[in-house]
């Protein structure tokens, strides 16, 4: 972790949804081991910014550059929707995502243990509470290693232990040379400095 290389560089980004321009002239860079918090009131464009970074929304103007010049960035997206099939068991859900995204991370059982869902692997995901579903969505990040995590309200519907879990996961990820961009209203339980990007009004 010597010379920090920018994993993600955004320059002069402008985005609008419908007729409304959410932001313009946005520029930032995220290096390995760095956490960038995106803040702003509801409707400021936090989720849209994450979706744009993920290559799903089309940007009006500007560039998004990834380390190595790759077109398809090695990233995990954790959005409002969990991507979990209620009719499959917890293990089946994770086994599926591990196969689809690449089996480079923890084994499904280990990921369940790490997110506090140990022993629930054989239960159908539809029986989980909202907080447990969120934990399962977090476990998906662990079964495949990706350098960049885009997290949208990662602590939504989690209890205090869950908040701590998110903090621990982010810290571990940063220490292993990853980078995290998180849109959040609450403070994340992460030790160390985090940069903050505020959308809406404060420009």
């Amino acid at each position, binding site marked *: 972790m010597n010379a920090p290389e920018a994993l993600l560089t955004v320059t002069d980004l402008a985005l609008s949804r419908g007729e409304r321009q959410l932001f313009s002239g946005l520029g930032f860079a995220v290096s390995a081991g760095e956490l960038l918090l995106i803040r702003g009131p509801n409707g400021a464009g936090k989720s849209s910014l994450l979706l744009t970074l993920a290559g799903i929304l089309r940007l009006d103007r500007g560039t998004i550059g990834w380390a190595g010049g790759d077109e398809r960035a090695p990233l995990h997206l954790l959005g409002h929707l969990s991507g979990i*099939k209620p009719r499959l068991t917890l293990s089946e859900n994770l086994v599926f995502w591990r196969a689809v995204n690449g089996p480079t991370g923890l084994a499904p059982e280990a990921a369940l243990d790490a997110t506090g869902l140990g022993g629930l692997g054989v239960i159908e995901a539809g029986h989980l509470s909202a907080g447990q579903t969120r934990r399962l969505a977090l476990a998906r990040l662990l079964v495949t290693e990706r350098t960049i995590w885009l997290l949208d309200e990662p602590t939504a519907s989690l209890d205090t232990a869950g908040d701590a879990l998110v903090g621990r996961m982010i810290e571990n990820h940063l220490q292993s040379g990853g980078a995290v961009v998180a849109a959040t209203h609450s403070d994340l339980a992460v030790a160390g400095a985090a940069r903050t990007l505020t959308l809406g009004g404060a420009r």
Partner: protein
Amino acid sequence: MNAFLAIIGRDLRLATRAGGDALTLVLFFVMVGAVVPFAIGPDRVLLAQLAPGIIWIAAFLSMLLGLDRLFRADEDDGSLLLLRHAAIPLEAVVAAKLIAHWLLSALPLLVASPLLAVLLSMEAGAWGKTVLALLIGTPALTAFGVIGAAVTVSLKRGGLLAPVLILPLSIPVLIFGVAMVSAPEGSSAASLFLAAVSLVCVAFCPFAAALALRVGSE
């Protein structure tokens, strides 16, 4: 390849677990065929003559019925967005879903077709030809369906739109499919045309549908 098989496996597992979605399609297929004799009357000769067309229409309708579930569930729970960052490109994801959808919506119909053949007093030879025609033609119908479902998945109430969109596109499949059954022995033009339509559609479908999905989520 693992990711490809995982998507097929998951779709098959979900369809068999969700309480017989595939079985409902088969029941619909058989019932459409069983209702026709009531409308036409108990003329066995006429029925046997019309049977290939009836089977094609029944298969066609039941394949339309299952269209909306193709991408809808994945869209609703966010999987479709996440699959954009899978280890395989979106085109391959669509191809996997195409295969899974054919296995779930066309293969059961082929298995159930003998029942319909009996109900419509078809001869064994005509039934065999119809099954062969369905086997060659249904991949094209599935491919059209996948494109239609991909185009309409971003519309919240697009469930009925996809069948309307793809119905006109599917006419050539029906024409050649029925022609293949009624063709005299030894003439293979219709079956070759049908196979060509199927191959071209299946080859282009993943690209068209993936493009539609990308544009749709913007």
